[in-house]
């Protein structure tokens, strides 16, 4: 078991502004699975993804990663948990506009203090895998939406993480590009990596091994 969440609660705000984002949700994700988390806007699916990815804390419940109980005391611990374990793919690509494609993809390697030559080789390889070898010196604003998302995927994969978390990865793309991106993710999953995708698109969800439906912060049967 890669991930096990037991009875997770998460609230935002206080008093009249209190939002109960997650209300005792539990789930398990096996190593090598490709799971879709589906739900309407405001259902808590992104909050759930943030908690799994160590971007956010939870108020109550238990989180086990590879069987080990995970407790975050501060942002530093969360950052150390994310580093090397998790790759993130966001709907809006989350690329740094003033950095080239090469530098965007190289970013995680730089924080691992790798040599310049190793970084150069691994980034070239990853860009080649994504069909972006001739775009290395371009800037994100010079690329199409599909190309941007492939750059974002290349950055998420460059550190060979155990888990990929994708938040609406095709939400900003047309249907052809959407299929192209999902093919890349499926191919990655076939190579044994675990992927969790948050989506409200049923077609995307059906391309995964399993679908978890969320409504009002709780899992519901399909």
């Amino acid at each position, binding site marked *: 078991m890669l991930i096990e969440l037991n009875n997770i609660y998460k609230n935002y705000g206080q008093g009249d502004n209190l939002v109960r984002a997650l209300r005792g949700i539990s789930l398990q994700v096996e190593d090598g699975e490709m799971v879709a988390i589906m739900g309407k806007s405001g259902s808590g699916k992104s909050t759930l993804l943030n908690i799994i990815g160590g971007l956010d804390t939870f108020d109550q419940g238990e989180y086990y990663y590879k069987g080990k109980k995970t407790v975050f005391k501060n942002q*530093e611990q969360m950052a150390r948990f994310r580093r090397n374990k998790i790759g993130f793919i*966001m709907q809006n690509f989350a690329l740094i506009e003033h950095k080239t494609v090469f530098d965007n993809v190289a970013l995680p390697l730089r924080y691992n203090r790798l040599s310049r030559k190793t970084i150069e080789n691994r980034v070239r390889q990853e860009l080649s895998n994504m069909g972006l070898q001739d775009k290395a010196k371009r800037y994100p604003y010079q690329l199409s939406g599909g190309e941007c998302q492939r750059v974002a995927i290349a950055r998420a994969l460059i550190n060979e993480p155990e888990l990929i978390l994708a*938040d609406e990865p095709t939400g900003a793309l047309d249907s052809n590009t959407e299929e192209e991106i999902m093919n890349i993710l499926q191919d990655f999953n076939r190579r044994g990596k675990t992927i969790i995708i948050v989506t409200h698109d049923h077609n995307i969800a059906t391309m995964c091994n399993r679908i978890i439906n969320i409504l009002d912060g709780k899992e519901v049967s399909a």
Partner: protein
Amino acid sequence: MRAEIIESIRQKAFLGLIIILLTATGLVFTAIGTLGINHLHGRLLDFSTKYQDEHIFHLYDPFNSEEILRSFLNESDAVERLMRFHERLENNPYFRYLDLNSQSIYIQDYSGPEKFVKGYEDGRADLNKPVDINGNLYRPVKGMQFSELVFTTFKPSLHSGRYFLSSEYHYQEDQPIPLILGSEYQGIYSLGDQLNIYFLGLQSRAQVIGFFNKDSYVFINGDIGYLDRQMVMPSLEFAFPALGTPIPDYLFAFYHVKTSGYVISKDLNADEVQVLINQFCRECRLTGWQIEGSHVNNLDILNLESHEFFISFLIISVVVFIFTFINIVLSLSLKIKNNLHTYAIHLISGATPSDIKKVIAAEIAFYLIIANILAASFAYLKFAYIGFNPTPLVISIIIGVLSLIYPFHQINQLNISMYLRGKR
């Protein structure tokens, strides 16, 4: 990390430049203010307290023009009368006479730093180039001449070596003239070093016999005179040449200088001292020596003025620092606000909040280091003689640390997922 720091500095470089200039300005004001208060004001206060009950008068000779001088030298036994007048000044029951003067000493083949050369603090060292004297090149360095009473009055302390012996105040042709050097000469000359000097027309050997402690001083020309860059020799006494032997030119020069010293008295006022000076002059068939008050109360006034002057510098520096501090905090906050999306991307790409904070701290350190270098360079060029002052460095470290509090708080509060959502 280095790439991130450079990138951060490049963004809004103009704001960075303003921070650097403001900080440098504040640091220069602080340097001047604190040095002024610590060194000058502190010493003046110390001096005023020590000599509170003393009256100090500067004695001036009447040789204001070449004509008067030539006319005096044409008189028979002029030099002898001058020497008697000096003797009268030194040996009288009414007041103490300080044979204290500031005349540069010419050093043969001088190769030391420019800071010791005459006129350096006024930016005129270049005008005092080596001069040819009897086929050798000599350069004038800052020099002072002390009688024994100068040492007992002001008590300048020695770092090493010894004071002049009583016998060394009397010129002996076959003996080197002893020299006590200011603290900054250490490492340039050593005890026992011999130099060829030229002083007031007299060519002689000289020997280093001691070094003063740092910040040793005497009272001269109505002010504190630090000895750190001075070469001090005894105010030499000469025996009058035997009858029938020629009188050397330097003898007049020496006694001309030696009769322009300082009168110190506890009880006599200026009028009373002038009456006595006139009486001594008459006894030696001389006229025209005048005193001018250098009462220690002048130092109190100077003290007060310098205090107010340096306090105003410090007030300006505080105002500049407040502006600098606000400017750093605001511009950094603005920069961080603009960069929150980028920081969030870094944080999902393996960076920790500490990594981001290190970049911000390095950026502030860069600004402050450049500002310190600018301020130190300016202070060195303009006030080279004041030496190192750690206060600006300490202040910039405090500003740097305080400036980090709010930006670090912003990073700690950063909601990554919120900044990664929304449109591209």
